[in-house]
């Protein structure tokens, strides 16, 4: 906070503050320490990455849907990865699958979603001037940026990017001799991920510290919006699990470059090749380490989306979220269970079958808090007064995906049934719905909902509706039939289905259909991109509180400056879900309205809280602008 004067007087401070706002372009927009700017940086990066990531999926869907297609028209982009006969190179097919997974999971749905909204909403919704450490926050983004640059660069090297699947299981990923993608591409992948993890940790520490320390007066944990609860738990998940991925990656780097045998044992390469000296390592060790992150990662991606959805559904149903405490409890339950279910990715890897039984029990328990959440969302809609803003539509869509994809998890989490379905398209369909599409809808819902706060302008509603319906229908058209292909036993990560009788002459039409639906859905996203860019410059000016929402971010100026609130940070007196309270004049009462001002709508126990209001107002611990440094 070097721009902040040590003068304790607020008024004097504001003057001082304004005076200091003439930062250089670089400090203001590029190397900014302001959480709002960093959030926007994450958002723009995330959108760019998602376009790249989804484009890759469209290209490999062309291969899967139309295996005989001549792809010469892609040569300007893919160069020699299209061979002389116009066929896509099988190695590059795997590279695209790998990059699609890596990009979408880490760069879009982790950085783009959590990075954007944790950064943007935590200080605004808890009533803080900024993150606990603006500098670490800036560092977090720029580590992510470098990670992005390295990953992007790896896609253009001669041997291609990493190509062993986004899970990069060794020995395939450890031995450059066995796969072109395991050469320089894999080195860059690992370097990029190491940087990415550093970025996540810096961000996560900041989110946790900010939520714990910088809540405004009266903002107890039991008054936090569910968004903040979700971001907080997500950050904890990331902080505990990402270091394990880092260690997995480091050991893999050692195996690749320094001749160690953590993951390698008894390997003979090639037809008349060489027996490697490595003995005693275990490829299963990597899988344990990877999925110790990999499974919580699913919730790192999903929880923020669920948190934002809670907020958006409550606001637009004009109803309190049903079961606020149950929602928190189920998120905590999910966050805890997320750490002890990773083995369900490994039922048929040769892991001890007894361990498989344990992981099956634990995995299916996670369905209980998930079911509670789904029922709570539905009950929130019940007897509401629902406004279909684009954000609301996407939130309802999210709940639908969360249910549809989550239910098939009950089948995959059952180790006996997983024998047949493991690594088939059933799995692909399952996780794309529950984690991919649901989280992407959370991201989109968040953008539509908080765009006015971010950029001071409104996005176009009608285009939002069109975007929603095309995307919602499109995603179901892609992933619903994909279950069928999985039930028929089609394995994933196959370049073509022509080698086997059991896949040869069936479902070719279904695969073409899925590819067309994917192209259709991808095309529909340009409606969003167009709307986003247009609204950025020409959108209607946002009103103070466009959704008539209760949370604190709508009490800031329409374009909040450095420090978010020009004067004193508002105090908080009530929970964030006082919508349609009986007796109240409006159908919403913001969190900063004291009970003493709303005697007509107070519940009996709330009248007792009026006496505490002076105490709340007297606190002033957390305003960074008032602290000497």
């Amino acid at each position, binding site marked *: 906070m070097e721009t902040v004067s040590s003068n304790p007087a607020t008024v004097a401070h504001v003057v001082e503050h304004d005076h200091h706002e003439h930062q250089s372009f670089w400090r203001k927009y590029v190397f900014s320490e302001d959480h709002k700017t960093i959030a926007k940086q994450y958002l723009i990066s995330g959108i760019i990455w998602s376009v790249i990531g989804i484009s890759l999926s469209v290209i490999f869907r062309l291969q899967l849907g139309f295996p005989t297609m001549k792809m010469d028209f892609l040569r300007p982009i893919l160069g020699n990865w299209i061979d002389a006969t116009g066929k896509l190179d099988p190695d590059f097919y795997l590279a695209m699958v790998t990059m699609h997974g890596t990009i979408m999971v880490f760069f879009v749905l982790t950085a783009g979603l959590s990075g954007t909204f944790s950064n943007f909403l935590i200080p605004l919704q808890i009533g803080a001037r900024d993150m606990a450490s603006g500098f670490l926050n800036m560092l977090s983004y720029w580590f992510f940026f470098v990670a992005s640059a390295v990953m992007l660069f790896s896609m253009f090297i001669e041997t291609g990017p990493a190509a062993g699947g986004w899970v990069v299981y060794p020995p395939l990923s450890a031995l450059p001799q066995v796969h072109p993608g395991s050469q320089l591409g894999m080195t860059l992948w690992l370097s990029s991920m190491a940087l990415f993890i550093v970025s996540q940790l810096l961000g996560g520490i900041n989110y946790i510290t900010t939520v714990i320390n910088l809540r405004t007066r009266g903002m107890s944990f039991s008054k936090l919006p569910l968004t903040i609860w979700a971001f907080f738990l997500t950050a904890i998940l990331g902080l505990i699990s990402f270091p394990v991925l880092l260690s997995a990656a480091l050991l893999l780097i050692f195996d690749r470059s320094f001749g160690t045998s953590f993951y*390698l044992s008894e390997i003979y390469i090639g037809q008349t090749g060489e*027996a490697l000296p490595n003995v005693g390592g275990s490829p299963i060790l990597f899988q344990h380490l990877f999925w110790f992150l990999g499974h919580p990662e699913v919730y790192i991606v999903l929880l923020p989306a669920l948190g934002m959805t809670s907020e958006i559904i409550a606001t637009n149903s004009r109803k309190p979220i049903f079961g606020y405490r149950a929602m928190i409890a189920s998120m905590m339950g999910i966050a805890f269970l997320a750490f002890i279910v990773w083995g369900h990715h490994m039922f048929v890897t040769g892991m001890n079958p007894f361990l498989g039984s344990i992981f099956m029990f634990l995995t299916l328990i996670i369905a209980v808090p998930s079911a509670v959440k789904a029922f709570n969302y539905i*009950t929130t809609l019940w007897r509401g007064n*629902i406004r279909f803003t684009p954000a609301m539509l996407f939130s309802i869509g999210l709940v639908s995906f969360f249910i549809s994809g989550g239910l098939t998890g009950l*089948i995959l989490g059952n180790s006996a*049934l997983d024998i047949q379905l493991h690594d088939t398209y059933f799995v692909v369909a399952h996780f794309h719905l529950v984690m991919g599409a649901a989280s992407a809808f959370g991201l989109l819902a968040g953008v539509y909902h908080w765009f006015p706060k971010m950029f001071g302008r409104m996005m176009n509603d009608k285009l939002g509706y069109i975007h929603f319906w095309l995307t919602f229908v499109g995603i179901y058209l892609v992933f619903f039939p994909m279950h069928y292909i999985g039930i028929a036993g089609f*394995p994933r990560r196959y370049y073509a289905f022509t080698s086997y009788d059991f896949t040869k002459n069936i479902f070719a039409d279904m695969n073409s259909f899925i590819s067309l639906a994917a192209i259709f859905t991808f095309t529909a996203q340009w409606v969003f991109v167009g709307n986003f860019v247009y609204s950025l410059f020409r959108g209607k000016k946002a009103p103070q509180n466009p959704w008539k929402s209760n949370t604190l971010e709508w009490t800031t100026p329409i374009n909040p400056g450095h420090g978010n609130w020009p004067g004193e940070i508002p105090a908080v007196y009530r929970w964030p879900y006082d919508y349609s309270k009986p007796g109240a004049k409006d159908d919403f009462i913001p969190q900063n309205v004291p009970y003493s001002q709303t005697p007509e709508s107070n519940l009996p126990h709330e009248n007792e809280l009026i006496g505490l209001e002076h105490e709340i107002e007297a606190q002033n611990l957390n305003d960074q602008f008032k602290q000497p440094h």
Partner: protein
Amino acid sequence: MVYIIAVLSVVFLALAALVVSRMSTVVSKVNEPSPDEEIGTSNRINGALFMVFLILGLIGIVWSYLHAQQYFLPEASSPHGRRTDFLFWLSMGIIMVAFIVTNIMLFYFPWRYQYNPNRRAAYYPENHKLELIWTVIPAVIMAIMVFTGWRAWRDIMAEAPADAQVFEIVGKQFNWIVRYPGVDDNKLGAFNYKLINSNNDTGIDYTDPASFDDFTSTTELHIPVNKPILLKIRARDVLHSVFIPHMRVKMDAVPGMPTRFWFVADKTTDEMRNMTGNQEFGYEIACTEVCGRGHFSMRLRLIVEDEASWQAWCKEQKPLLSSYPELATRIPLNLKAKAAKYLPADAVETSTDSTVAASQPGGISIARSTVR
């Protein structure tokens, strides 16, 4: 197909253009309606669209299911496969009920409770009884599913019966190699990965007399019907995964860590041909753990036949040692006599003369033997 894509992309582009041009007209009307008036037609349309989506979606699901059903879970040819199939459809039934009920509520409520300026939403923040109900009901259903699944899993993963016929299947880039235990001792010999070369592609260790009659194949696995089969699975280079779709068998092949899977095949290939009416039918073994460029084409044929013809087929096969007598150099002197019957006469003489018989080609020392 290319033309269809071209046509469709043109259509999509046209749609996109249409949307963009609409955008300007929509945006030009920006100043007129205030937000509250906007909640009206659009809201009603969106609410109704949820009902349309629900109905069309249900029709689509039923129709596509009926269309695709014929290809689901190819005929199971193993008892444990039929058991997991039953559990699969049972679980599928349960989740379909949950899926349809929740989605109906999810789409009906928005339509039913869409915005009405004359109405207020209910202030209904919690109900502990409801929460309890929908915690307990899923928990009970889950417990049943877990219990049935766990019993099946426990039985499938149990130790193979003592009389199981053993085979070894080795994954490499990009094919499977099957090693048969041989007709004389019906026992797999030891192996060591350092012994792998182009003649000995599974690294059979000929210091173990059980190896002498072992034979290998890279194209076919022949197994007897109605007899427990134990697959000993390993990998030479990277991870692979044995997948036999009709047997409901899947297990990773891991370098350095042998895995196994046992099952009973109870329909011969011929029986399946008659049953499916497809005279071309054949069982197949695929790879389901990404292993590189040729991952999608690691096909190995699986032939299930009655015990007698399986025995007969095995007898016709030539032990690897007979095909490559030079492998005999590793056989220790005291076992030479035992190995003699697998070797051509001249090969035996040359190798007994050899002074390097007991030492390693290339001088590699074997740290430990990996008898399985």
